[in-house]
């Protein structure tokens, strides 16, 4: 027969063990979203169609409600591809990526817009067709008759600083801060903006061509000769020659 003391000691022991295990169990449950045994994975989806301010919230809420998944993050601003990036945590035993993509396509935001998961690379502008090339050859801009010019402004620190100021103000929209032709407005333009780091440390033989191009413009590039003075254009050229190829 166990005495009262023995029974109480055993009970206390059990309770203590339970108290040890319980927090660990709760911790495990909370860390895995309530299902410690499931294989949870996080996948990323590029979303098309987030056009109204209510769209992101409506998409996240509808997805969580319909599929019992967890929306970890909706990166609207800094995704590398430019498309908004939705991170979804789901159980790979019960759901697949395809099911989530189909569900996203069926969700509507309050204004009635639909979403879509972006597939493949961003097609910005298809290459020119043969017909367009032939038209450009027939009616396009005349071949440049470029004079050999020499830069009257020495490439000093002050000149480069002035050039950077004008470049940041006028050129970055299309050519990008690093001169990689990837500015915010670049993808809406018919022809891809030139990558300006190719002119790094070129000698004076390129000066006449650069000056002519900046002054006259071509295709979608406006003639900056109307806006920038001659000295300002030379400052910009001095700055362009210091741009390095981005990593």
């Amino acid at each position: 027969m166990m005495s009262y003391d023995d029974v109480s000691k055993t009970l206390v022991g059990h309770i203590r063990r339970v108290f040890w295990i319980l927090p660990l169990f709760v911790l495990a449950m909370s860390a895995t979203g309530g299902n410690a045994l499931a294989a949870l994975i996080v996948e990323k989806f590029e979303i098309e169609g987030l056009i109204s301010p209510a769209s992101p919230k409506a998409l996240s809420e509808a997805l969580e409600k319909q599929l019992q998944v967890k929306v970890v993050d909706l990166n609207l601003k800094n995704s590398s591809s430019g498309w908004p990036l939705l991170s979804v945590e789901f159980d790979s035993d019960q759901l697949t990526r395809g099911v989530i993509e189909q569900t996203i396509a069926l969700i509507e935001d309050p204004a009635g817009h639909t979403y879509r998961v972006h597939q493949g690379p961003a097609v910005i502008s298809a290459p020119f067709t043969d017909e367009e090339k032939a038209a450009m050859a027939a009616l396009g801009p005349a071949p440049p008759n470029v004079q050999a010019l020499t830069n009257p402004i020495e490439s000093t620190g002050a000149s480069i600083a002035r050039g950077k100021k004008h470049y940041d103000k006028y050129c970055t929209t299309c050519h990008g801060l690093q001169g990689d032709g990837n500015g915010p407005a670049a993808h809406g333009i018919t022809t891809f903006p030139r990558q300006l780091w190719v002119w790094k440390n070129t000698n004076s033989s390129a000066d006449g061509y650069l000056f002519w191009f900046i002054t006259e413009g071509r295709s979608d590039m406006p003639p900056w000769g109307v806006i920038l003075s001659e000295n300002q254009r030379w400052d910009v050229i001095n700055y362009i020659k210091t741009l390095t190829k981005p990593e």
Partner: protein
Amino acid sequence: MAARIKPPRMRIPRKIKKDDVFKVKVRFEHPSFTGLGQVEPETTPTFNRAVPVNFIRNMLVYYGEELVTRFNMTSAIADDPMFTFKLKAVREEPITVAFINNEGERWEVSADIKFTT
């Protein structure tokens, strides 16, 4: 974002005499998207890609076989644009206007020019 593209339409005067300068009007119902949208203006006041880019890139005008003018456009073009330009009626040949969008798709509209006496 249903793409509601309709074939282009062209209108020229009913009566054209030889050496008349006449107006050609072309209407093309095609959407125009830069692809940019302001998703959360309060928290992230930047424009990012929201829908695919889609706009008319080129308009080529042929008078018979000859290419007479070319219009280069950007995503700043309007939805469903209407183009008007003048031509001199020098010979009895069809005018053909071809549109090409940024995805390389092509549409065409054509009208015959016949001189009235």
